[in-house]
């Protein structure tokens, strides 16, 4: 049986995805952009008034004062659902504040809001939106986009467009896949988080994958989704040195996990996927498990904390001047890979950074 090469297939699917979901980035010139010193003063004033958040960092260098590109990073930990709701309220407040003149924002990569946005039913109430954020059916930025774009007249609204970051579809999936395989092969449930911190935020990855699946379905790209999933599983399990019989078992179990979660998400029934997660039979021996851990760790380092950070910084640098927010996992700005965190990468491009973090434990 003949199939395309994995790289050709990944490239083709990426191109089809981009055609179906072209970036909504308007990148228009915001006539009200302000210099960093003014943005810094305003944010300090506004965040001080908010008991749920504090500013943990703002670039101190004197030379940044007159910069008009500013990155406002809002720290996320993917585990705290109250924080996610607070972030939604915070962003809503920031984007309807006529004193701030924010420009269009960025997305860390939880399937771009622009592609997830059309998959959301019309007419959701505020309570439903908050419930969807709590259950990770909707990302915070997507919820703000949904709530504000058509309903609120404000100076910032024309610039409210959450732009996707520039990871390819294959790269985005590769980041999720190791963790997904750890679930489907029965490893994740047997390893305490305390011992393997890589598994923290596991449900975040699965939710993210489901958002990706919904977007592909919405774009009539169902075959492309499964082809991408299959080819990336093949790529990863081949590189791990697993034999073809094991590759097949992993592929089958992983599709089963994706489908179980998708059904559970649709039916708002978290127990069925949790059962799946806890009851999946373990199919990797210790050596194979260690290889998978290593792969997950490497992907986190290389794709999440290096490639993704570099491309995030590039995007901030390449767009029109303005103050842009981004909800981003705290590891991006607190951990350094090759001596650099996201803050370092932004600042070396001349972009000052303000970091906002939740104050609740």
């Amino acid at each position, binding site marked *: 049986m003949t199939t*395309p090469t*994995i790289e*050709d297939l990944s490239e083709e699917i990426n191109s089809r995805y981009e055609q179906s979901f072209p970036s909504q980035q308007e990148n228009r010139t915001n006539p009200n952009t302000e210099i960093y010193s003014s943005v810094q003063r305003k944010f300090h004033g506004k965040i001080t008034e908010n008991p749920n958040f504090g500013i943990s960092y703002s670039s101190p260098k004197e030379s940044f004062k007159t910069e008009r590109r500013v990155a406002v990073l809002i720290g996320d930990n993917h585990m705290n659902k109250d924080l996610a709701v607070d972030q939604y309220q915070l962003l809503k407040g920031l984007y309807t504040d006529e004193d701030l003149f924010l420009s269009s924002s960025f997305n860390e990569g939880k399937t771009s809001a622009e592609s997830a946005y059309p998959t959301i039913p019309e007419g959701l109430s505020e309570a439903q939106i908050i419930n969807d954020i709590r259950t990770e059916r909707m990302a915070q930025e997507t919820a703000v986009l949904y709530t504000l774009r058509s309903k609120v007249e404000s100076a910032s609204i024309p610039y409210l467009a959450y732009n996707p970051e520039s990871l390819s579809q294959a790269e985005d999936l590769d980041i999720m896949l190791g963790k997904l395989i750890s679930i489907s092969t029965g490893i994740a449930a047997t390893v305490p988080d305390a011992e393997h911190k890589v598994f923290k935020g596991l449900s975040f990855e699965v939710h993210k994958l489901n958002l990706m699946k919904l977007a592909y379905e919405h774009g009539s790209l169902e075959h492309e989704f499964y*082809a991408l999933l299959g*080819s990336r*599983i093949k790529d990863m399990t081949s590189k791990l040195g697993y034999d073809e019989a094991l590759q*097949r078992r992993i592929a089958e179990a992983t*599709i*089963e996990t994706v489908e179980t979660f998708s059904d559970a998400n649709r039916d708002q029934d978290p127990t069925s996927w949790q059962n799946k997660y806890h009851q999946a039979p373990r199919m990797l021996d210790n050596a194979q498990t260690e290889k998978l851990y290593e792969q997950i760790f490497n992907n986190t380092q290389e794709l999440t904390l290096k490639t993704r950070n570099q491309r995030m910084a590039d995007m901030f640098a390449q767009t029109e001047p303005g103050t842009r927010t981004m909800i981003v996992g705290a590891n991006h700005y607190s951990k350094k890979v090759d001596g650099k965190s996201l803050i370092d990468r932004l600042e070396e491009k001349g972009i000052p950074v303000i970091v906002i973090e939740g104050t609740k434990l």
Partner: protein
Amino acid sequence: MIGPTGKNPNDDFFTDLGKTPKANKPNQDHHGSSQPNAINAGKWLDEAKSFLQLDSRKAKVDFVLSLINSGSST
């Protein structure tokens, strides 16, 4: 899904996969080796979309396994 002939039309897709014409340009894997049997990705996907219905979990699994079984390389 069972077609009018009484067999699963997805089976035809997998059977016919190997008969698909080869791509014009040879593909290369990461090690630089030629993949003369690899077919054009766009054409392969278009054929999959035409012939293969992903209307059951089994069909989805079969489709994914077709990529595992084929010996696709990077």
